[in-house]
């Protein structure tokens, strides 16, 4: 039976996604490797994996790629699992290539799907910022493989009511850190970063008055997205510059872009990259936004926006 190791970054969606990915590859014995886990988290992992190897937490209690590598590498080298899985997250990126190099495994990065195809491992991933997809194939490798998974790409499946074995492990005695954590910084609570948002609700001149922004703001909240805007809205100082999308504002690359009262000027759309799924609500059927959007709704935003919010909230509950 194939051995699949996963390296646990968090005990929420991430762990579930890793489990789902491991299961998507057919019959396998799965081992979760984790540095520092509370009792209940260990139990939760035991329901997802056949074995849970728990190393002591790092010195500062946070994810520390160098320390984790020192812990798990001997296991990878001694047990030679077929595949090692990590999330393609910021933390995963800090660790995965190091492990790949040191365990001599080909690394399939940022995979949307995985498929065992003997004698090798195939995957689909995106290139060119999501504009293109690539089907790649890792050749036969006696050292096994390593893959990082696009967060959110593997649907979280219901936990198997399994009873994995819990195994305590120790950190290597000769571990000599070459990097030390000095401080963890919490981002300024007030600052928004629309460039990283997956869902953006953009508002344009069609909003007419500053007071009307509220309905769009609460639609964005309902959708779990950020509020963005066009230049005129910033010019009127209704919203801060950090929310402006366009050639003179920020370049964004969301997955969903809901444009409300946005005419779709050349300058504005110049800031929307990565071909998001674009929905436009506008009163003017001739608004250029409809040429670019995937879905268009012609109508009065003051009626449509609250209605949509209501339906989203209903849907989510």
């Amino acid at each position, binding site marked *: 039976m194939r051995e699949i190791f996963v390296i646990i970054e968090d005990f929420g969606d991430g762990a579930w996604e890793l489990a789902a990915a491991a299961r998507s590859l057919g019959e396998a014995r799965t081992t979760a490797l984790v540095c520092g886990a509370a009792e209940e988290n260990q139990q939760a992992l035991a329901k997802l994996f056949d074995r849970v190897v728990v190393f002591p937490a790092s010195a500062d209690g946070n994810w520390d790629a160098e320390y984790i590598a020192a812990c798990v590498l001997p296991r990878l080298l001694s047990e030679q699992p077929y595949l090692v899985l990590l999330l393609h997250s910021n933390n995963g990126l800090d*660790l995965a*290539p190091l492990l790949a*190099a040191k365990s001599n495994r080909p690394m399939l990065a940022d995979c949307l799907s995985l498929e065992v195809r003997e004698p090798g491992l195939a995957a689909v991933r995106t290139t060119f910022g999501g504009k*293109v997809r690539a*089907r790649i194939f890792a050749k036969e490798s006696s050292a096994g493989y390593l893959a990082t998974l696009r967060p959110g790409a593997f649907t979280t499946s219901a936990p198997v009511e399994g009873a994995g074995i819990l195994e305590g492990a120790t950190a290597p005695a000769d571990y000599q850190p070459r990097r030390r954590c000095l401080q963890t910084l919490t981002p300024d609570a007030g600052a928004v970063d629309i460039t990283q948002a997956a869902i953006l609700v953009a508002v344009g001149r069609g909003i007419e008055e500053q007071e009307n922004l509220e309905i769009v703001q609460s639609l964005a909240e309902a959708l779990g997205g950020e509020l963005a805007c066009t230049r005129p809205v910033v010019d009127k100082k209704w919203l801060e510059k950090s929310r402006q999308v366009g050639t003179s504002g920020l370049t964004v690359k969301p997955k969903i872009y809901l444009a409300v009262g946005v005419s779709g000027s050349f300058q504005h759309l110049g800031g929307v990259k990565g071909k998001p799924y674009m929905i436009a609500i506008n009163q003017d059927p001739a608004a250029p936004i409809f040429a670019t959007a995937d879905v268009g709704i012609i109508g009065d935003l003051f009626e449509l926006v609250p209605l949509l919010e209501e339906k989203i909230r209903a849907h989510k509950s």
Partner: protein
Amino acid sequence: MEIYVCIKRVADTSEVEIEVDRSGLALEEADFSWDINEWDNFAVEAAVQLKEQHGGTVTAITVGGEDDEEVLRRALAMGCDQALHCYDPAFEKADAWAIATILAAALKGRAIDLLLFGAVSADEGRGQVGGLVAGLLDLPLVSLATALTVDGAKAIVQHEVENGLERVREVDLPAVITVQTGINEPRYVSVRGIRKVAAMDIPVHGVAELGLAAENYASQTNRITLEELFLPPQGVGAQILEGSNEEMMNQLIQLLQENGGL
């Protein structure tokens, strides 16, 4: 301080209608323009700023074809002192592993204080070459740096971690740092600036110079092959919803759900 910065020339696909060519393994490149990878541009700026503060030299390295020399010239114009072009027909279609081993071969035996990479490339987007080189050279790695200073034999690096947090770390030098965009404000490179460095000598190292001794290097070293490129499914023009407000919003909820918005 001896700083090395590894950079890549990538296609700018903005405003271009992307098409896969007949082989299914490459894109139609006629409309592409080419430039330094955005992340690498920040890495070069970081390297040059550190040199300006602490002295030393900055060497820019790329692995790529003949035309890729362009980004080395650009790096020289930004203030790098020298450049190294790892180019050999045998490197064509090198995968990340092969690129990392070429770079490791090029760097081996050099006195390195700091080795900088862009965190990710705009084309392949694998984000792994820097980390692979760190692993191959057994150097400490910090990924996605948003701030970087050097203090004696240590670097102080702020980098992006989980949940929008950033962590500040102290790293022993030599180290590999991969650089996130926004770490600095890269200087502009004027057309004249490029022309001024046109005559600078850029050594070209191939299989032999790098001691890699394999004529079909990439095909032997590559661990991952490309099987197919394809475009993700996408719509054309706006589908205009019809019906009452109520009906339109119901359809929209449906569409949002299908497209990952809910």
